[in-house]
């Protein structure tokens, strides 16, 4: 929890590495194109990053427990369909309903993982396929338009004219998760599970519940990300969020959370999500040609992880 007491300066620095990487990236993009560092541009980045931040924050919990959730993007896509279908009838209630359903779906995967003893990688890979199929069928394999988006419109507004509501919401989600972890025993339980599941279990930690809970929150976050996407897109679609999976995982790892579990935080994922978003939108905007953009993206992500990962916490890197 607060290992800060004995922290050496070098260790403290690794905690800030994700932020340093972020700043370096903004600087590099600004040098490449001075127009990039405008207020409007940064506001746009914040708004753009919101769904990714929420997705990554939720999945971070699963990663901290030592697992991985590959279903988040498919679940978010399915949730956009549900939301679009339900908005006409449920109105404002559609949002909590979708988040609740997504949370339940996440929890079901968690239960399958825990009870069937199948690696989370496989459960959620299967889950991804199943959820995609359901989304395709439920939506009739097409976009579901939202004619009256007023119940989710608030997410598309700007607080004080500057702060995108979606970004503010994402920030609140991250803060809430972080604070809850900080002030309750959950943090200990989650890291114990991630670092050493058997030791955690033999200390009476409710390992199974903790894992199911993590999947549940991850699902809920996918649901919320879906709400953000619908508010931005005025529709739901069966593949709408599918492409956010790898960026979300990249965000978590770039933030410095150990993919093997235990070490990391949602704050790190927030920084990671911003780095990934900047790379996704920044590189093409400053004029990097498509092919080189991919090459740079790959290379920068690898270097960013090399910078942010706190190696003193993980002895063997797989």
């Amino acid at each position, binding site marked *: 929890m607060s290992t800060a007491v*004995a922290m050496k300066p070098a260790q403290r620095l690794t905690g800030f590495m994700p932020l340093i990487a972020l700043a370096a990236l903004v600087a590099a993009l600004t040098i490449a194109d001075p127009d990039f560092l405008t207020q409007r541009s940064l506001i746009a980045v914040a708004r753009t990053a919101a769904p990714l931040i929420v997705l990554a924050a939720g999945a971070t919990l699963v990663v901290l427990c030592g697992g991985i959730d590959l279903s988040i993007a498919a679940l978010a896509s399915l949730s956009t369909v549900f939301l679009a279908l339900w908005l006409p009838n449920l109105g404002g209630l559609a949002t909590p309903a979708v988040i609740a359903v997504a949370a339940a779906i996440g929890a079901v995967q968690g239960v399958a993982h825990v009870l069937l003893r199948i690696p989370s990688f496989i459960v959620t890979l299967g889950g991804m396929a199943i959820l995609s199929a359901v989304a395709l069928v439920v939506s009739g394999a097409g976009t579901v338009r939202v004619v009256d988006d007023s119940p989710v419109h608030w997410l598309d507004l700007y607080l004080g004219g500057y702060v995108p509501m979606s970004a503010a919401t994402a920030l609140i989600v991250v803060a809430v998760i972080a604070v809850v972890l900080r002030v309750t025993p959950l943090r200990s339980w989650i890291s*114990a599970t991630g670092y050493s599941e058997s030791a*955690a*279990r*033999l*200390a009476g*930690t409710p390992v199974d519940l903790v894992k199911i809970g993590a999947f549940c929150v991850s699902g809920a976050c996918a649901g919320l990300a879906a709400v953000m996407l619908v508010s931005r897109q005025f529709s739901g679609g069966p593949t709408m969020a599918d492409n956010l999976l790898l960026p979300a995982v990249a965000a978590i790892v770039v933030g410095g959370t150990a993919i093997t579990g235990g070490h990391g935080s949602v704050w790190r994922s927030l920084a990671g999500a911003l780095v990934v978003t900047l790379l996704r939108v920044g590189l093409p905007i400053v004029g990097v040609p498509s092919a080189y953009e991919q090459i740079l993206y790959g290379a920068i992500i690898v270097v960013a992880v090399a910078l942010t990962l706190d190696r003193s916490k993980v002895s063997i890197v797989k």
Partner: protein
Amino acid sequence: MNALEVRGLVKHYPGVTALDGVDLAVRPNEVLGLAGENGAGKSTLLKALVGLVTPDAGTIHVRGEQVKLRSVVDAANHGIGMVFQEQSLVPNLTAAENIVLGSEGPAVRRGIYRWDVMRRLAQEQLDKIGSPIDPLARTDSLSFADRQMVEIAKVLRIEERSQHPPVVILDEPTSVLESKEIETLFAQIRRLREFATVIFVSHRLDEVLDVCDRVCVLRGGKSVGEVAAAGAVPRELHRMMIGSTGSDDHYHGSAATTVVEEQPRLSVRGLSGASFHDISFDVAPGEIVGIVGVHGSGREDVCRALFGAEPTTAGEIRMDGTRIDLPSTRAACAAGIGYVPAERKTEGMVGALSVAENMTLAKQQARCAGPFVAPKKQATLVDSWIRRLSIRTPGRDTPIQRLSGGNQQKVILARWLVAGDIRLLLLDHPTRGLDVGVRSEVYRLMRELAATGVATVLLGDSLEEAVGMADRILVMNDGRVATEVPCPTGAKPTPLDLVKEMV
């Protein structure tokens, strides 16, 4: 000429001086014992001898020649090899591969395995120690003792490498062995002595005196003396180790609780699982019941079943007369049961978490106000237990992996005590790897807990320990309780009595 000699070896770690000018001479074909408290510097010294630790000052001489050892390979080329404290075999390889690992020689030609050659090479090593195991057996299919034989065979492979009689280092090889296996190991060591030099570390001083020719004692990173094993007694060694005389009453028998006949705290009837059958016994409040048996007798699994960590197929468990169900460790925890596993590093502690977090992991309520962690309450609680158990740690926020084994064990014991609601404690090898001093402290703690009415099930680290601590002993054999032996202070059975029932 000495087989190995160390002069003025110094090793500093941030904040600790692990070695403070150690001198040591090892004569050819002797078995040299190394004794000292936890943290005295034994492992560090030995690691320096196999090139895993680079000393800050001092010199190492092999057969009279000063050498610099940069790596395990380097040391092996000089004929020095080590059996590590935690077993270091690759479980999914064959025994033969493990034996030749890193020095395959003719067994691998241009990257291609020649299994027949490998088998032969491995067999040669196994023959040296007369081990009958199949070199091509997968290592994880071997028994613990057999695996240790493989480790020794592996170390002996350096003989071919260096063309000199090997120096074999054994760091606490017995801490995880059963008495029967220890006998076999000692027979091997005596056999090794014919052609090799052995350095042997153990916290069981009687053992050290039994197998060694000479014992050197380390304290605070310095050599503080040596004794010839013949005729020496453990008390003498102990005194040298800690600088004063230890208590006569190692097991604190005088503090043993007199068990009054009343409703049993724990009552087990007909409990069966995958590796044990029809187990029935009672433990009264304040009673310490020891379970003894060889590896595979099923006692570990019984212990785990009582903690909800192993499924049962039949039988019932009652706590203070109430029948309880243990579908999970959480349920056991809530029922006031605590468990200290034998594998401290992998199952006992969460290395990267702090002392405080490890100590409060099981009983979160002890550091919380409502659902929230109360930092002040936690600090007070943890610090008070650090003081009560004299846990040596820089602070409560230090990651537990930086503590010595004994102190780690105290933290894990404290884990079950912080909430004060513990009714039954299951201790699986609670003193494994602890020095005599710390062990004695653990025994005292067990007595204190018993005095407050905590029932204890003890799987002792040795038969002596079980006999010394227990009020009653169950002997398990092949998954069943073979017999029950009363074990009151003053009328203890001899270990030999028990062994007869065990096999």
